[in-house]
């Protein structure tokens, strides 16, 4: 199976703090990968490196068979990388529909009726249709999270990066979110999902990567990884040498 994403020795430091330290992994076309790790482990920085908002000190990002390390964030988004933010960042002075249209026209490169149709379909899917003409700045947190998802999907991504999108949701909301993500995944979109809500994550992903101090410390089958010594050590504070 061809690889949609490949990270090669990706590293980035802020002073002495390494947010990415020799990160290596591959993602197959259509695969769903989960990423876990403690706060400050460098998970979001990894997304910033993949999307191009953060420049790597060393290492490479390959996307869809091309080395995109030197490409701008805008160029990478047009190639098919889209993400959602843990803290939603809508264009607050624009309506929900206009927010979606920016992604559809700029990132996905659609125009006119095709862009509008896509936006309306996605708004229907994410449950924001009745808020289409509401200024994004006045949305509640849940709806802002939905808008993050909406914009990412309107970009028609090949690779969808989700950053703690389930955090703060009720059980029912989380369930419908998982269903949406499953539906998106079923259309062939590759997904990397950073999430603390592990049961939601495990409902979707087929592989798990654990990151701590910018390093990949475990990788593999989700249940095996969750049961592994490294993960217990990080989350439960069990000393591996004890």
């Amino acid at each position, binding site marked *: 199976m061809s690889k949609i994403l490949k990270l090669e020795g990706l590293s980035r430091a802020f002073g002495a703090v390494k947010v990415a330290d020799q990160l290596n992994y591959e993602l197959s076309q259509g695969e769903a990968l989960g990423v876990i790790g403690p706060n400050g482990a460098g998970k979001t920085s990894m997304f910033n490196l993949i*999307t191009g*908002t953060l420049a790597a000190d060393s290492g490479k990002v390959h996307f869809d068979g091309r080395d995109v390390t030197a490409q701008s964030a*805008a160029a990478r988004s047009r190639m098919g990388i889209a993400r959602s933010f843990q803290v939603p960042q809508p*264009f607050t002075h624009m309506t929900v529909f206009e927010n979606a249209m920016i992604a559809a026209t700029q990132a996905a*490169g659609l125009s006119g009726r095709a862009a509008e149709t896509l936006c309306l379909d996605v708004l229907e899917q994410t449950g924001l249709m009745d808020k289409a003409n509401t200024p994004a700045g006045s949305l509640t947190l849940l709806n802002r999270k939905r808008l993050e998802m909406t914009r990412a999907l309107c970009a028609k991504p090949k690779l969808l990066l989700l950053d703690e999108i389930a955090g703060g949701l009720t059980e029912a909301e989380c369930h419908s979110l998982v269903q949406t993500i499953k539906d998106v995944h079923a259309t062939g979109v590759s997904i990397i999902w950073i999430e603390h809500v592990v049961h939601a994550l495990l409902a979707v992903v087929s592989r798990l990567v654990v990151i701590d101090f910018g390093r990949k410390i475990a990788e593999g089958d989700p249940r095996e990884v969750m049961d592994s010594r490294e993960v217990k050590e990080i989350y439960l504070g069990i000393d591996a040498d004890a």
Partner: protein
Amino acid sequence: MEWINAILQGTLLGGLYALFAAGLSLIFGVMRLVNIAHGDLIVLAAYLGLTTTVMLGLHPLVALIVVVPAMAGIGYVLQRAVLNQTLGDDILPPLLVTFGLSVIIQNALLEGYSADPQKLDAGALETASIALGPLAVGVLPLLTFAIAVAVVAGLQWTFYRTALGRAFRAVSDNQDIAQLMGLNKRHVFGQAMALALAVTAVAGLLLGIRTSFDPSIGGGRLIFGFEAVIIGGLGNLWGTLAGGIILGVAQTLGAAINPGWQLLAGHLAFLIVLAVRPNGLFPRISG
């Protein structure tokens, strides 16, 4: 009747000020850039109009079809080559660079056209007037006002009804996220400056038809533009038109009291608005 006439003339003059201001307002709105060279770019457009009319023998209003695209092109190149490099968290570099640009444009115009006052010859249009009851309204001021309304309406439409306008607003709202949505902000800023200078071209030609100009008058036009933007409220184009009208009316009323008070009255009106409503009368952007 003298007062009604002054208010009417001031309102129409306000259209010209709104045209001075529209480009300034647009640029500030999209990229938070205060363009100190804006007045000199208006004067540059007037000179480009002069060259076009003299060389091609065109009527100044027909020369718009040459000057508008020329200024738009200059705007795009200027933004991509120079101004984009100055934009960042610090507001000082763009101020300094556009100030320097202002000096450069003035001196280049002095070198090329000398300090002699020039004027665009619009023929009969300049003196034509329509009788409105006991008042005589100049066709040129009326046309200027109509163009100003059309330009503001056109910009408003562009901002809220087109993909280009959506891109402007997205970049204005959150540059980083806009980049992640596939927008190249450098290109978008270039487009914004091109549009702003296209409007400036219209302003420059109408200025050149209305009054004589020389390379040194850009600063004064910048001030009028600024005052119209601030009176109207930042980020609101219809407010900018209102600001231009208030400034124009204040000036003509001042001049009706005492011919020497024209500019003073305009500045006083600006000062009063600034003191009472620091964000302008119809602000859209807060802070």
